[in-house]
C-alpha cells in the first residue's frame, strides 16, 4: 500500500461514510427551516452553522454527499455499462467499419464537454438529478470505450488469445473471458477517476441549476446559494467547497494509488 492510496482511501471513506450515515442519522432534519436562526456561524449546536433559511449545514453536507455520490456512481455505471462493451467490440473488430463507427461516434460525444451535453439534455427533458445522471453518464461512455479498446488491442495479439481461437471460442466469448479480466485493473483506476469527475460535474450542474432540484441538498447548489452571501457569511461557500475538494482529492489520490498498486511493475519497484 502506498501513501497516496491510504490518504485517498481515508478521504473518500469520510465522504462515503457521511453519505451512508445520513440515511440513519443527521444532527437535524436537513430540510427543516428555522428562519430566525439563519446565517449562524459554526457553533456547538450547529457544527457547520446554518444557511440563509436556518437549515443545519452539517446535515445538508451529509445528505449532499449522498446526492453527489449517488449521481456519480450511477453515471459511472452507465459509462461502464455501455462504454466497456463498445470498447471490447471495437477492439475485436479492429479496423472494420464497426470499429470506425464506434470510435468516431465516441469522438463526437467526447468533443462535447459534459456541461454542454447536460444543458442539452436538461433543455429537452427538464432539470433534475436523473437528467444530470444521464448527462454525466453519456459523457463517460467514450472514456471507457477508448480505455478498453486501447488496452484490449495488444491483448488480441497474444498467444493465449490465439489458443482460445483455435479452441473454437468466438470473439464475444474471448472478449468476456480473456480480454476483460486483463483490462480490469485499468478499468478500476479509470472508474475511480471518472467517479471524482462525476462528483465535480454534479456540483457544476447543480451550481447552474440543472442538477438536483430543491429541497434535495446538493453541494453545487449550496455553493450557488452562498454566492451573494459570501461577504457576510463566508462559511456558506467554504464548507460545501471543502466538501467537494476533500471528496474529489480523495478519489483522485485513490485512483493514483490504485494504479500504482495494481500495476505489477510499480508494485514490485516499491516493495
Amino acid at each position, binding site marked *: 500500500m502506498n501513501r497516496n492510496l491510504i490518504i485517498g482511501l481515508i478521504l473518500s471513506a469520510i465522504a462515503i461514510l457521511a453519505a451512508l450515515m445520513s440515511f440513519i442519522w443527521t444532527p437535524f432534519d436537513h*430540510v*427543516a*427551516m428555522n*428562519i*430566525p436562526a*439563519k446565517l449562524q456561524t459554526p457553533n456547538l449546536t450547529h457544527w457547520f452553522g446554518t444557511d*440563509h*433559511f*436556518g437549515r443545519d449545514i452539517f446535515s445538508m453536507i451529509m445528505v449532499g454527499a449522498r446526492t453527489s455520490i449517488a449521481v456519480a456512481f450511477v453515471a459511472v455505471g452507465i459509462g461502464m455499462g455501455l462504454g466497456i462493451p463498445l470498447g471490447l467490440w471495437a477492439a475485436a473488430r479492429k479496423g472494420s467499419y464497426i470499429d470506425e463507427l464506434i470510435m468516431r461516434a465516441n469522438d463526437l460525444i467526447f468533443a462535447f464537454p459534459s456541461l454542454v451535453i447536460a444543458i442539452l439534455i436538461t433543455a429537452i427533458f*427538464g*432539470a433534475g438529478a436523473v437528467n444530470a445522471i444521464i448527462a454525466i453518464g453519456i459523457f463517460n461512455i467514450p472514456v471507457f470505450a477508448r480505455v478498453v479498446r486501447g488496452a484490449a488491442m495488444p491483448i488480441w495479439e497474444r498467444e493465449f488469445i490465439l489458443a482460445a481461437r483455435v479452441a473454437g471460442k468466438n470473439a464475444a466469448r474471448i472478449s468476456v473471458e480473456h480480454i476483460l479480466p486483463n483490462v480490469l485493473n485499468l478499468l478500476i483506476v479509470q472508474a475511480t477517476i471518472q467517479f471524482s469527475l462525476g462528483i465535480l460535474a454534479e456540483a457544476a450542474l447543480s451550481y447552474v*441549476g440543472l442538477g438536483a*432540484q*430543491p*429541497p434535495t441538498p446538493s453541494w453545487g447548489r449550496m455553493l450557488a446559494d452562498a*454566492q*451573494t*452571501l*459570501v*461577504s*457576510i457569511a463566508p462559511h456558506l461557500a467554504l464548507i460545501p467547497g471543502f466538501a467537494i475538494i476533500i471528496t474529489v482529492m480523495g478519489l483522485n489520490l485513490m485512483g493514483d494509488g490504485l494504479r500504482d498498486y495494481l500495476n505489477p511493475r510499480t508494485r514490485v519497484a516499491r516493495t
Partner: protein
Amino acid sequence: MKHFVSRLALASALSVAGFAAHAANTDITVAMQLEPPHLDPTSAAAGAIDSVLYSNVFEGLTRFMGDGSVVAGLAKSWDISDDGLVYTFILHDNVLFHDGSTMDAEDVQFSLNRARADDSTNAQKALFAGITDVSALDAATVVVTLDAPNGNFLFNLAWGDAIIVAPESIDGIKQAPIGTGAFKFANWVQGDKIELTRNDAYWGTPAVLENVTFKFISDPTAAFASVMAEDVDAFVGFPAPENLPQFEADPRFQVLVGSTEGETILSTNNKMPPFDNVKVREALAHAIDRQAIVDGAMFGYGTPIGTHFAPHNPAYVDLTGSSAYDPELAKKLLAEAGFADGFETTLHLPPPSYARRGGEIIAAQLAQVGIKVQITNVEWAQWLETVFRGKDFGLTIVSHTEPMDIGIYANPEYYFQYDNPAFQELMTNLNATTDPEARTALMGDAQRMISSDFVNGYLFQLAQLSVAKAGVQGLWTNAPTQATDLTAVSWAD
C-alpha cells in the same frame, strides 16, 4: 407583468468594466439589472424600457410622480365634460421634440390613435380601449371622447405605454428614441449601457445632470461588486437584499427602501384540480407564513399583503388576518376538502430571488400540512411559455408589478383563471365610477372578494431597494411605475 418580457430579450451576460470615476458633479452612472430589448415604450411590455426612458426621454399628457400621484405632463390643463365622456386637453406651448420639431395636438392625436389601433402592438391596449375619438381642435387643444365614463383615464394616460411620440420619428424609435423629455438619447452599447445627455431646449424645469449612463448588470454578485467598487453611482432595484446591511453600515452609501406596485403572490391555477376547490385554496392560504417568507427570501424587506393591492394605496384594505398562518386549520380544511393525506402539485419558480428563495420556503411550509410540492426552476422565457401562456402549472410565484392591476382578476383567461361573474361586474362598475369615495368603496369590495375566494396566495408587496452614493439626491424611493426619473436628481454640492 412588465418585467417578464424584458428578461426574455435579455440573454447577454454583462461584464463589470471599471471606468473612470466622475470628476464633474453633473454626470451620473445608474445601474439596473435588466437591459431593454429595444427603446420603444409603446410597443413592448418590457419594464426595462420604461426604467430607462420614462420621464427622462419620453413624456405623456399626464405623468406619475415619485409618490404615486398623477400630475400634469405635456398637458397643461384639462377639462372634463359633465357626463365624464369628453376630455379637452390644453397642451404646453413651445414643446420641442429632440429633433427640433414641435410637439403639437397632431402628435398627441397620432400617438393615441396609434396605441389604440387594431394593429397596435401596445402592451397595454386596455388603457385606451374606451377611446372612441381623438381630435385636434387646434395646435394646442386635443379632445378625447370616451364611450363610457372612466375614473382611471388620467391615471391611464400617465403610463409609459401612453407617452407622446412623433409620426416622423416613429420608424427609428426602437434604436433612436426621440421624445420631449429633459434628456436626449445619445448612445446605446448593447449588452452594456445606454447614455443620455441633457436636453437644453427642454420646455419645463431643466435637469441638473448633464450626462446620464445606465449600466446593465444582471448578476447579483456583480451588482454588489460594482457598487462596492464605486463603478456605479447608484443601483436602482438592487437584486440582493442580503447585501443591503453592508451598504447601510458604510458611510459612502445610502440605501433607499421604498415600495413598488409589485404584489408578490403564490399564483394558483384556479381551474386545475384540486385548486378549483375553494377549501383547498383556503388551506393553502393558511399554510403560508408570510413573515417567514419576507424574512427568509427578502431579508425582511417587504410588507405582507392579504389581497392583490398595494399597501401604500389609500384604498388598501388590510386582509392579512383572514388568511393568517395556521397550519392546523389548513390541515382541517384539507381534510374537509377530501385531502386528509394531502396531495402533490408543481411549483414553477422564475429566476428572481423572491421566487427561488420564497419557493423553497413555501415548499417547506406546504410540506408541513401534507402538500408535496415539486419545485421546477424555470427561466423567464420558459415561464411565459408554460405558465403564463400554456397555463400548465399548479402553483407559481411571481410579482405583478403594474400599478392598480386588480382588474386582471376580471379576465377569466388570465393565467390563474379566476372566473367569477360577480367580480367581473364589480370591475365594470369600478371603471364606470368617477366619484372618488364610491371608487374607494368598490376597490375595497374587490379586494375583499378575491381575498375571501382565496384566488391566489397573497405573500408580500415587493420592496423597491436602491443603493446610491451618499451624495446623490432626488432619486425616487418608491416605484409607483417602472421608472428611474432622473430629471430632478443632483449631487449634493
